[in-house]
């Protein structure tokens, strides 16, 4: 009835990672909200975005925010699924769908950030 599982697949790593990424996301989210909503222009004009994106460190923060958000969110969805009994084929399908959607949207997001030009270099 019960199969012994190796600690590698116990979910302990994803549990720790969910907390670490969560803490990081709270910090990043505070910055994101202050930046985007302190003034209506800063979140909604092309010039503001262009201005921010001139700094590579800002791009790195944005990419980190996106990657962590995707990881935390998809890991969270998987956590919801894990609360229910699943047939092996369903498990594989769910994981595949999450990974494919996650990678597709992360790559899309990356490509959007990289498409914004550096004005002078």
């Amino acid at each position, binding site marked *: *009835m019960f199969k012994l599982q190796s600690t590698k697949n116990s979910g302990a790593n994803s549990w720790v990672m969910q*907390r670490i990424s*969560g*803490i990081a*996301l*709270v910090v990043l*989210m505070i910055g994101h*909200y202050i930046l985007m*909503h*302190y003034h*209506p222009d800063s979140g*909604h*004009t*092309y010039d503001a*975005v262009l201005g921010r994106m001139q700094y590579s460190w800002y791009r790195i923060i944005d990419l980190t925010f*996106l990657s962590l*958000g*995707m990881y935390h*969110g*998809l890991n*969270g*969805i998987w956590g*919801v699924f894990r609360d*229910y*009994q699943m047939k092996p084929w369903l498990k594989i399908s769910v994981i595949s769908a999450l990974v494919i*959607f996650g990678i597709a*949207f992360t790559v*899309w*997001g990356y*490509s*959007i950030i990289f*498409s*914004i030009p550096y004005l002078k270099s």
Partner: protein
Amino acid sequence: MADEYKGIKTFDQKEWVKENLSYKKDSGSWAWIFHRVTGLALIGYLFLHVYSLSTLTSGRTAFETKMQSFLSPPLLALEWFLFIIVLFHSLNGVRIVLVDWADGAKYHKTLYRFSWIIGIILFLLMGYIMFSHEILKFFGK
């Protein structure tokens, strides 16, 4: 499978909504439910967010036309309500980390109440920041 355990109530997955609703709920149970619902909403929003910013690749006019459509009062209000979801998930997330890593099981109900108080204050503050231009205009400043 679980029928082998005699005398232990088994969980019928087909009636999970009914089953879940039948349990007595304390603050922790509500926190668990809200955390789950808000989490699913947030990952849905993240997908939407990537999509809605994709006009950045088509240059200034395309982006600003799209952004102007988000600045209408109903959508601005929706954005404000999104902050409720973000706030709950963040504050409850901090609570979960404290429960797991800082002996928070001893004071998790207090934390739950505090996170609502802090959340409501931050929600109102964000409302003022987001609508400050409209509010100041209303008072003729």
